[in-house]
Protein backbone atom coordinates (compact mmCIF):
# COMPACT_ATOMS: atom_id res chain seq x y z
CA UNK A 1 0.00 0.00 0.00
CA UNK A 2 1.14 3.57 -0.49
CA UNK A 3 0.28 7.10 0.58
CA UNK A 4 -0.94 9.45 -2.15
CA UNK A 5 -2.49 12.83 -2.80
CA UNK A 6 -5.65 12.92 -4.91
CA UNK A 7 -5.05 15.27 -7.85
CA UNK A 8 -8.15 14.82 -9.94
CA UNK A 9 -10.71 12.61 -11.59
CA UNK A 10 -10.90 10.57 -14.76
CA UNK A 11 -14.02 10.24 -16.89
CA UNK A 12 -14.03 7.17 -19.13
CA UNK A 13 -17.35 6.58 -20.92
CA UNK A 14 -16.07 3.49 -22.74
CA UNK A 15 -14.32 1.05 -20.45
CA UNK A 16 -14.13 -2.48 -19.12
CA UNK A 17 -17.54 -3.61 -17.78
CA UNK A 18 -15.93 -4.27 -14.38
CA UNK A 19 -15.25 -0.55 -13.95
CA UNK A 20 -18.71 0.73 -14.92
CA UNK A 21 -20.10 3.11 -12.32
CA UNK A 22 -16.86 3.35 -10.36
CA UNK A 23 -15.08 6.64 -9.74
CA UNK A 24 -11.51 6.87 -11.04
CA UNK A 25 -9.03 9.24 -9.40
CA UNK A 26 -5.61 10.49 -10.48
CA UNK A 27 -3.10 10.00 -7.65
CA UNK A 28 0.35 11.37 -6.88
CA UNK A 29 2.10 8.66 -4.81
CA UNK A 30 4.18 10.07 -1.94
CA UNK A 31 6.99 9.09 0.40
CA UNK A 32 5.93 8.94 4.08
CA UNK A 33 7.13 12.52 4.59
CA UNK A 34 5.11 13.80 1.65
CA UNK A 35 7.55 14.07 -1.26
CA UNK A 36 6.42 12.80 -4.70
CA UNK A 37 7.47 9.21 -5.35
CA UNK A 38 6.76 6.45 -7.86
CA UNK A 39 4.63 6.95 -10.95
CA UNK A 40 1.38 8.86 -11.34
CA UNK A 41 -1.49 6.42 -10.95
CA UNK A 42 -5.17 6.05 -11.70
CA UNK A 43 -7.13 4.37 -8.91
CA UNK A 44 -10.67 3.23 -8.22
CA UNK A 45 -12.27 5.16 -5.38
CA UNK A 46 -13.91 3.08 -2.64
CA UNK A 47 -14.29 5.71 0.09
CA UNK A 48 -15.54 8.91 -1.54
CA UNK A 49 -12.19 10.71 -1.70
CA UNK A 50 -11.79 13.95 -3.63
CA UNK A 51 -9.17 16.40 -4.85
CA UNK A 52 -6.90 17.54 -2.00
CA UNK A 53 -7.34 14.46 0.21
CA UNK A 54 -4.34 12.44 1.32
CA UNK A 55 -5.28 8.79 1.01
CA UNK A 56 -4.12 5.25 1.56
CA UNK A 57 -4.05 3.22 -1.62
CA UNK A 58 -3.94 -0.49 -2.27
CA UNK A 59 -1.94 -1.65 -5.31
CA UNK A 60 -2.54 -5.36 -5.45
CA UNK A 61 -5.06 -7.33 -7.47
CA UNK A 62 -6.41 -9.85 -4.95
CA UNK A 63 -6.93 -7.21 -2.29
CA UNK A 64 -8.58 -4.92 -4.83
CA UNK A 65 -10.98 -7.64 -6.01
CA UNK A 66 -11.87 -8.42 -2.40
CA UNK A 67 -12.54 -4.77 -1.53
CA UNK A 68 -14.65 -4.17 -4.65
CA UNK A 69 -16.25 -7.64 -4.56
CA UNK A 70 -15.75 -8.20 -8.28
CA UNK A 71 -15.24 -11.96 -8.00
CA UNK A 72 -12.06 -13.68 -9.23
CA UNK A 73 -12.04 -12.11 -12.70
CA UNK A 74 -12.15 -8.38 -12.00
CA UNK A 75 -9.22 -6.55 -13.66
CA UNK A 76 -8.82 -4.12 -10.76
CA UNK A 77 -5.57 -3.34 -9.03
CA UNK A 78 -5.23 0.16 -7.60
CA UNK A 79 -7.95 1.02 -5.07
CA UNK A 80 -8.23 3.98 -2.68
CA UNK A 81 -9.12 2.42 0.67
CA UNK A 82 -8.58 5.05 3.37
CA UNK A 83 -8.20 8.68 4.37
CA UNK A 84 -4.96 9.58 6.14
CA UNK A 85 -5.37 11.71 9.27
CA UNK A 86 -1.76 11.82 10.41
CA UNK A 87 1.60 10.21 9.68
CA UNK A 88 4.15 9.77 12.43
CA UNK A 89 7.71 9.05 11.29
CA UNK A 90 10.05 8.32 14.18
CA UNK A 91 9.59 11.08 16.76
CA UNK A 92 7.98 13.55 14.33
CA UNK A 93 4.46 13.98 13.05
CA UNK A 94 5.21 14.53 9.35
CA UNK A 95 1.59 14.92 8.23
CA UNK A 96 -1.50 16.19 9.98
CA UNK A 97 -4.50 16.68 7.74
CA UNK A 98 -5.89 19.53 9.87
CA UNK A 99 -2.77 21.59 9.11
CA UNK A 100 -2.26 20.37 5.54
CA UNK A 101 -2.12 22.45 2.39
CA UNK A 102 -3.71 21.19 -0.81
CA UNK A 103 -1.33 19.67 -3.42
CA UNK A 104 0.22 22.08 -5.92
CA UNK A 105 1.39 21.34 -9.46
CA UNK A 106 4.97 20.08 -9.62
CA UNK A 107 7.56 22.67 -10.71
CA UNK A 108 8.40 22.60 -14.41
CA UNK A 109 11.50 20.55 -15.25
Amino acid at each position, binding site marked *: MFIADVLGTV*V*APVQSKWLDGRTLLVLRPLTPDGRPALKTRVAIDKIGAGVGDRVLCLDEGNGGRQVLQTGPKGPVKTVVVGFIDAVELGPRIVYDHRAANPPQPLPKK
Partner: protein
Amino acid sequence: MYLARVIGRMVATQRYPGLEGVALQLIQPLDESGAPMGDALVAAATVSTGPGDLVHWVDGREAALACPETYVPVDAAILGFVEQADVLGRDLAAPGNAWEQPRSAATEPH
Protein backbone atom coordinates in the same frame (compact mmCIF):
# COMPACT_ATOMS: atom_id res chain seq x y z
CA MET B 1 -3.63 1.62 -13.24
CA TYR B 2 -2.09 4.46 -15.21
CA LEU B 3 -2.85 7.04 -17.89
CA ALA B 4 -1.37 6.69 -21.37
CA ARG B 5 -1.58 7.93 -24.92
CA VAL B 6 -2.07 5.39 -27.71
CA ILE B 7 0.72 5.97 -30.24
CA GLY B 8 0.35 3.09 -32.67
CA ARG B 9 -0.91 -0.35 -33.56
CA MET B 10 0.83 -3.72 -33.68
CA VAL B 11 0.21 -6.53 -36.11
CA ALA B 12 0.96 -10.12 -35.04
CA THR B 13 -0.52 -12.92 -37.11
CA GLN B 14 0.78 -15.82 -35.02
CA ARG B 15 -0.74 -15.59 -31.54
CA TYR B 16 -0.83 -17.58 -28.37
CA PRO B 17 -4.18 -19.45 -28.29
CA GLY B 18 -6.80 -17.18 -26.73
CA LEU B 19 -5.30 -13.96 -28.00
CA GLU B 20 -6.85 -14.18 -31.47
CA GLY B 21 -8.79 -11.03 -32.22
CA VAL B 22 -7.30 -9.00 -29.35
CA ALA B 23 -5.95 -5.68 -30.64
CA LEU B 24 -2.37 -4.90 -29.65
CA GLN B 25 -1.50 -1.23 -29.41
CA LEU B 26 1.57 0.80 -28.53
CA ILE B 27 1.02 3.16 -25.61
CA GLN B 28 3.13 5.89 -24.00
CA PRO B 29 2.41 6.22 -20.25
CA LEU B 30 1.82 9.79 -19.08
CA ASP B 31 2.37 11.48 -15.72
CA GLU B 32 0.16 13.97 -13.84
CA SER B 33 1.30 16.90 -15.98
CA GLY B 34 0.63 15.02 -19.22
CA ALA B 35 4.32 14.44 -19.97
CA PRO B 36 5.69 11.02 -21.05
CA MET B 37 6.51 8.77 -18.08
CA GLY B 38 8.90 5.90 -18.83
CA ASP B 39 9.14 3.94 -22.06
CA ALA B 40 6.39 3.13 -24.53
CA LEU B 41 5.03 -0.41 -24.36
CA VAL B 42 2.59 -2.78 -26.04
CA ALA B 43 -0.82 -3.30 -24.43
CA ALA B 44 -3.82 -5.46 -25.29
CA ALA B 45 -6.78 -3.21 -26.07
CA THR B 46 -9.90 -4.56 -24.34
CA VAL B 47 -11.96 -1.59 -25.54
CA SER B 48 -11.98 0.00 -28.93
CA THR B 49 -9.23 2.68 -28.99
CA GLY B 50 -6.82 3.98 -31.57
CA PRO B 51 -3.72 6.12 -32.05
CA GLY B 52 -4.11 9.57 -30.46
CA ASP B 53 -6.58 8.46 -27.78
CA LEU B 54 -6.00 9.06 -24.07
CA VAL B 55 -6.61 5.79 -22.19
CA HIS B 56 -6.20 4.19 -18.80
CA TRP B 57 -4.46 0.84 -18.52
CA VAL B 58 -3.48 -1.77 -15.96
CA ASP B 59 -0.33 -3.87 -15.63
CA GLY B 60 0.37 -7.27 -14.07
CA ARG B 61 -1.94 -10.26 -13.78
CA GLU B 62 -5.02 -8.02 -13.92
CA ALA B 63 -4.21 -7.18 -17.54
CA ALA B 64 -4.97 -10.76 -18.61
CA LEU B 65 -8.19 -10.72 -16.56
CA ALA B 66 -9.43 -7.83 -18.69
CA CYS B 67 -9.04 -9.85 -21.92
CA PRO B 68 -11.87 -11.98 -23.36
CA GLU B 69 -9.86 -15.12 -22.52
CA THR B 70 -8.36 -14.62 -19.04
CA TYR B 71 -5.56 -17.22 -19.00
CA VAL B 72 -3.34 -15.56 -21.58
CA PRO B 73 0.21 -14.17 -21.50
CA VAL B 74 -0.63 -10.46 -21.29
CA ASP B 75 0.83 -8.03 -18.75
CA ALA B 76 -0.54 -4.69 -19.91
CA ALA B 77 -4.11 -3.99 -21.00
CA ILE B 78 -6.01 -0.86 -21.99
CA LEU B 79 -9.13 -0.76 -19.78
CA GLY B 80 -10.87 2.37 -20.95
CA PHE B 81 -11.04 5.38 -23.22
CA VAL B 82 -10.55 8.60 -21.23
CA GLU B 83 -12.81 11.48 -22.25
CA GLN B 84 -11.81 13.82 -19.46
CA ALA B 85 -8.93 13.71 -16.95
CA ASP B 86 -9.15 16.67 -14.61
CA VAL B 87 -5.81 17.05 -12.78
CA LEU B 88 -5.51 20.09 -10.47
CA GLY B 89 -8.00 21.97 -12.59
CA ARG B 90 -6.42 21.11 -15.95
CA ASP B 91 -8.08 18.66 -18.36
CA LEU B 92 -5.40 16.35 -19.78
CA ALA B 93 -7.83 15.09 -22.42
CA ALA B 94 -8.27 18.59 -23.89
CA PRO B 95 -6.23 19.28 -27.04
CA GLY B 96 -2.71 20.51 -26.29
CA ASN B 97 -2.75 19.68 -22.56
CA ALA B 98 -1.04 16.28 -22.69
CA TRP B 99 1.83 14.92 -24.73
CA GLU B 100 0.96 13.79 -28.23
CA GLN B 101 3.08 11.91 -30.71
CA PRO B 102 4.70 14.32 -33.17
CA ARG B 103 2.98 13.90 -36.52
CA SER B 104 5.19 12.79 -39.39
CA ALA B 105 4.74 11.14 -42.75
CA ALA B 106 5.40 7.75 -41.15
CA THR B 107 2.55 8.14 -38.65
CA GLU B 108 -0.03 9.66 -41.01
CA PRO B 109 -2.93 7.29 -41.68
CA HIS B 110 -2.98 5.76 -45.16
